[in-house]
């Protein structure tokens, strides 16, 4: 799967950040070309696709601790020599940490919905129950 994904070319229209180069109206120079000015994230994705194809999805799996055995060892070996994948891993870690921090609050007083739910059952839930 990793090899196939590595060889697959993303449709240009689906790559955000890419800009079509306007062709010179007289010479047609630049027609069909794409600007190299892409965002760092897109460039990183391209690098991973080109250089680390089979590791791209697996890196996310490794980050989740769901890669085992030889696959995990291969990933660790790759990370030692690949700054692009190390940077990608660090970004995942930052996003996770930020999401954890954000999810901690602000917190509101717990207001139970039990009474509302049981009242709705009284309004018509009984007939439908499989009990």
């Amino acid at each position: 799967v990793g090899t196939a994904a590595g060889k697959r070319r993303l449709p240009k229209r689906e790559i955000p950040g890419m800009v079509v180069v306007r062709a010179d109206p007289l010479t047609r120079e630049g027609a069909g070309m794409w600007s190299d000015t892409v965002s760092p994230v897109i460039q990183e994705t391209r690098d991973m696709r080109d250089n680390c194809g089979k590791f791209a999805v697996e890196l996310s799996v490794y980050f989740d601790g769901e890669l085992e055995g030889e696959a995990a060892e291969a990933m660790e070996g790759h990370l030692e020599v690949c700054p692009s994948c190390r940077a990608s891993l660090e970004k995942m870690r930052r996003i996770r940490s930020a999401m954890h921090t954000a999810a901690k609050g602000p917190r509101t007083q717990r207001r139970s919905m039990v009474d509302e739910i049981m009242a709705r059952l009284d309004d018509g839930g009984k007939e439908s129950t499989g009990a």
Partner: protein
Amino acid sequence: MAKPATATAQAASDHILDTRRLDNADDSTLISAFKEGDRAAFQALVEKYETRVYNHCVRVVGDDVESRDLTQEVFLKVYRSIHKYEHTYAFYTWLYRITVNCCIDHMRKKRRHTQTVSLTQGFQVDAGEQGKEQEIPDEQFGPEHRLVNSELRDVLNDAIAQLSEKLRTIIVLKEVEGFSYEEIADILGCSRGTVKSRLFRARERLKELLAEYVDA
């Protein structure tokens, strides 16, 4: 041991668990009692899981009122379809599947409108946990982009709101709620491979949307 006066009384005696047993009963016991007609057992399940169901709803849908409605809808579906529940999966997994599907259906209906989500809006905790929140700078984003929590939430909520329903759901299940790949596959009714690829896509999209903050 005295016999109940009537068969009805015997049935009632069999079906109605006392309060102490309900408080300590596991899911399997509660479900069995509920299937036999014990409403108190269903109420105990609601009390046990309502906060977790609500929190998932508000994390992916973002609106307190809508999330409360969704939570009620989830438990009404549980009530109506408990006879379909089999012990192949943990009740918690089955409940989450219903919750996720209700949220995705809801978000699809709202897709035409601009959405905002909140990892925390109306986030419920028990009374004892109230007041612990502080404005702590996040040290994990890049040094030049340390944010206090309120700013961090805004940035993240905006980014998550731009994800598709499926990507939003899976990133919350994994990063906030901490489910394993196997559990997520069971909840979503998909393969482990789909979980892998969907999480990868969600993360790539978030990296792109949060590039200003996560780039070294």
